[in-house]
C-alpha cells in the first residue's frame, strides 16, 4: 500500500470535520472520494499532506506515519502532487515557468534541465505550444492542464486532485477527464475528491463515499452509483443528477 489512513480525525474549534476516516490507496490505483459539500473531503485531502494539521489518527505514507513529530513535511509534500479546484497557477509566471519553478528551487535543476523536463510534461498535457503564455491568457481547461503538468514535473508518488473540474464548464471538464484517463494508462497513482458524477464515473477504479466526516460506503462505480442500500447515497446521486 502506498498510503494507509487510519482513524483520521480533524476538528476545528467547535466543529468536527472528520470523525475517524480509514482509507487505503495502492500504487497505480485511482480512487475517487465523493460526498456532499461540507462532508470534509477537501479537508481530508489537505490533512494527508499536512496543509491542515489533523487532530488524531495515522497517515502511513510509504510505510511511515507522517503525522509523527520530526517528519520532514516539505519532503513529504514534494512527493505528493496537488491539483486545486481554482488552478492556483502563479499569475506572474508563464506556463513554462510555473512548471520549472519547483524543479529549480526544490530539485536544484539547472535552467536547461528544468526547461527540458517542463516542456516534456507540458507536451504530455498537450500544452507545449502554450508554454510561453501567462495564466491570464489561458482558458480554464488549459490552466488546469498546466497545473497538472506542474504537479507531474516533480515525479510525485501520488497525485491529489481537489475538485479538478468544478470551476470548469462541461466542455473543459472533458479535457481534464481525458487527461486524467491518460495518466491512468500511464499507471499514475491518483486520489481525487469531487462531487462531479461524470468525472467519477469516467475515471474511478473505486469510489469512496464520505458523509458527515465518516466513510459511508466504498466500492466499485457500479456498486456506489447503482441503487445503493443507503438512502443518503441514493438521495445524493438523485440530487446531483437532477442538478446536472
Amino acid at each position, binding site marked *: 500500500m502506498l498510503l494507509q489512513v487510519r482513524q483520521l480525525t480533524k476538528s476545528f474549534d467547535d466543529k468536527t470535520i472528520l470523525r475517524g476516516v480509514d482509507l487505503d490507496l495502492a500504487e497505480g490505483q485511482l480512487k475517487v472520494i465523493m460526498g456532499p459539500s461540507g462532508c470534509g473531503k477537501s479537508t481530508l485531502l489537505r490533512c494527508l*499532506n499536512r*496543509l491542515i494539521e489533523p487532530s488524531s489518527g495515522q497517515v502511513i505514507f510509504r510505510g511511515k506515519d507522517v503525522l509523527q513529530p520530526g517528519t520532514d*513535511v*516539505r*519532503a*513529504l*509534500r*514534494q512527493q*505528493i502532487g*496537488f491539483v*486545486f479546484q*481554482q488552478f*492556483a*497557477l*502563479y*499569475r*506572474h*509566471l508563464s506556463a513554462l515557468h510555473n512548471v520549472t*519553478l*519547483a524543479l529549480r*528551487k*526544490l530539485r536544484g535543476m539547472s535552467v536547461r534541465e528544468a526547461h527540458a523536463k517542463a516542456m516534456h510534461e507540458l507536451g504530455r498535457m498537450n500544452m507545449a505550444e502554450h508554454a510561453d*503564455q*501567462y*495564466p*491570464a*491568457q489561458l482558458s480554464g481547461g488549459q490552466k488546469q492542464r498546466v*497545473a497538472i503538468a*506542474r504537479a507531474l514535473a*516533480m515525479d510525485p508518488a501520488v497525485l491529489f486532485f481537489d475538485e479538478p473540474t468544478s470551476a470548469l464548464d462541461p466542455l473543459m471538464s472533458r479535457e481534464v477527464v481525458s487527461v486524467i484517463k491518460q495518466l491512468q494508462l500511464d499507471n499514475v497513482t491518483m486520489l481525487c475528491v469531487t462531487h462531479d458524477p461524470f468525472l467519477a464515473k469516467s475515471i474511478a477504479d473505486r469510489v469512496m463515499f464520505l458523509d458527515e466526516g465518516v466513510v459511508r460506503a466504498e466500492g466499485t462505480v457500479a456498486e456506489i452509483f447503482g441503487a445503493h442500500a443507503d438512502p443518503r447515497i441514493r438521495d445524493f446521486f438523485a440530487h446531483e443528477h437532477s442538478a446536472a
Partner: protein
Amino acid sequence: MSFLQMFSLLASGAGYTVLVTVACIATAVVSGLLVALLGRLRIKPLNRVLAVYTYIFRGIPVLVLLFIVFFGLPGIGLSVPPLVSMMLSLGLIAGAYLAEVFRGALDAVDESEIMAAEAMGMSRSQILFAIEVPQMLRFSVPGMLNEFTTVLKYSPFAYTVGIPDIMKQALALASTTLRGLEIYLAIGLLYFAIYQLMLALMKAVERRFSVPGFKRL
C-alpha cells in the same frame, strides 16, 4: 557670467540632485521592504514597534527630521555627513510611506497561489522570494512612482545641509546675477524634466516586467 558657465553650474547641480534622489529612493525601498516584510512575520510586539516607527516617520516633516539629524545629532556626539542626513530623513520618511504601499500589495497576493506553493513543499522564504515579492513589486508600481516623485520634489532641501544640488546652484546664481526670476523659472523646468525622465524610466521598467493580464484581484 556667460550662459555656458551658468549651464555647466546647473548641470553639475542636476548631477547632485539625481544623486540625492537616487540615494534617498534606495534608502526608502530598502527600509520600506524591511518594514513590510518584518510585518509579515506577524510577531505582535514587533508589529507594534513597526507601527510606531511608521507613524513617527510619516508624521514628522522632512525638513524638521533633516535638521534633527544634521544639526541636532552632532550635539550628542554624532556627526552625520550631508548625504547620509538626507537618506536618514527624506529616505526613511519615504520608506515609511512605501512600507504601507508594500504591505497593501503583499495582502493582494492570491492566498491560493501561496497554498499551492506550500503544497509543492516550498519553504517560507522560497515562497516569499519566488511568489510574494515578485507579485508585490508589480502591484506596487503606482505607489512607488508617487513616492519617488515625492523624493525628487523634496530633494532641494539638500541645499540646506550644503549639498551643491540644483537649488544651491540656483541660489548662488540668483545672488550673483540678480536674475532670480529667470533662474528659478529655469530650474523649475529642469526639475520637471527630471521628473518626466523618471516617469519614462519607471514606465520602461514596468513594461520590461509586465505580465499579460496580471492585475490586482
